[in-house]
């Protein structure tokens, strides 16, 4: 059961859940992070199998409940969106690089 999953039941290497049809990708990522935080409190209390099962049920409960899904979407930190954006222009050189360049 726990093969390929973290101790908190998150599919290893997966940012977003497999079945979160009501949620957009950024909200799904936020929900996963919140589930990590909530389930962490029970890590010493329950077996890994229970934690993985709880994660699935909680994720489904967000997906099934339009009000809760809407709250998740509204609560999602807007800055998270930037992590998925491609840079539109070349990054500015760092100060140290610019200084090194200036000394040459």
């Amino acid at each position: 059961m726990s093969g390929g999953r973290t101790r908190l039941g998150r599919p290893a290497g997966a940012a977003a859940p497999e079945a979160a049809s009501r949620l957009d990708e950024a909200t799904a990522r936020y929900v996963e992070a919140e589930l990590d935080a909530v389930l962490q409190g029970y890590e010493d209390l329950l077996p890994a199998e229970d934690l993985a099962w709880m994660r699935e049920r909680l994720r489904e409960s967000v997906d099934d409940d339009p009000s809760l899904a809407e709250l998740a979407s509204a609560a999602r930190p807007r800055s998270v969106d930037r992590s998925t954006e491609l840079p539109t222009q070349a990054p500015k050189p760092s100060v140290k690089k610019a200084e090194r360049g200036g000394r040459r």
Partner: protein
Amino acid sequence: MSTTAIAPHIDDEPTELDAPEREPPYVADPPPPPPKDPAEERALVAQALPLVAQMARRVQRELGGRGDVDELESVGRSALVDAVRAHDPARAPLLGFVALRLRWAMLDAVRRDSHVRGRAARASAMGALLRVAEGDPIERPSPESSEASLQRRFRQALDARAAALVVGLAAASEPPPEELDPEQAALRLSARRAIAEAVATLPERQRALVERHYFGDERFDDIARSLGVSKSWASRLHAQAMRALAERLRELA
């Protein structure tokens, strides 16, 4: 140095979310709907019948794929007519209402009758989760709410639901389910003890609801009746108890 006072954002002020929770305002149960015409009832039952198989598959999946789906369908068929009779078209759409009632009936049957205790514990936990969703309706986010307050509300909603699952799983673990290995069984038992201790600190009515339903295996409706409160209000008290338990368990962790 600037002397401009910065007014605190309204969401930085203490809110009712931060204050110790008082009991929610009393909510009476809605009156039963008027009886339906037999022909209308038959037509509604026929319309809702496909939900029995759908819900049976869903509940089986929720319980980890264990058990016999035919047994769940049988429970669903028995519960279908009552669900249609209890439906009030003025309050909810038929199919959503019936689906929820069927899910409840199936989870309740597994919780009471399953010979596999791990499956019974999961059914108890799912029942607790559904009850929190019922007693803790989520208000639509207001455009004026700050990100921080929305995040706090979302975390509280998840916390209450997680606590409900933990209470359901752990309370039904005495004796530990035979399919668990000794280490897992020991964890469940220590969780049960931790939760029992946390439950003992709840206000009287919340404690009575949680102890008698999850640890004493009494029906929720019967406990509400014996406490002299409506089932709707008992559901709200239950949700409040789960929010409080989430906090207590976090302190313990």
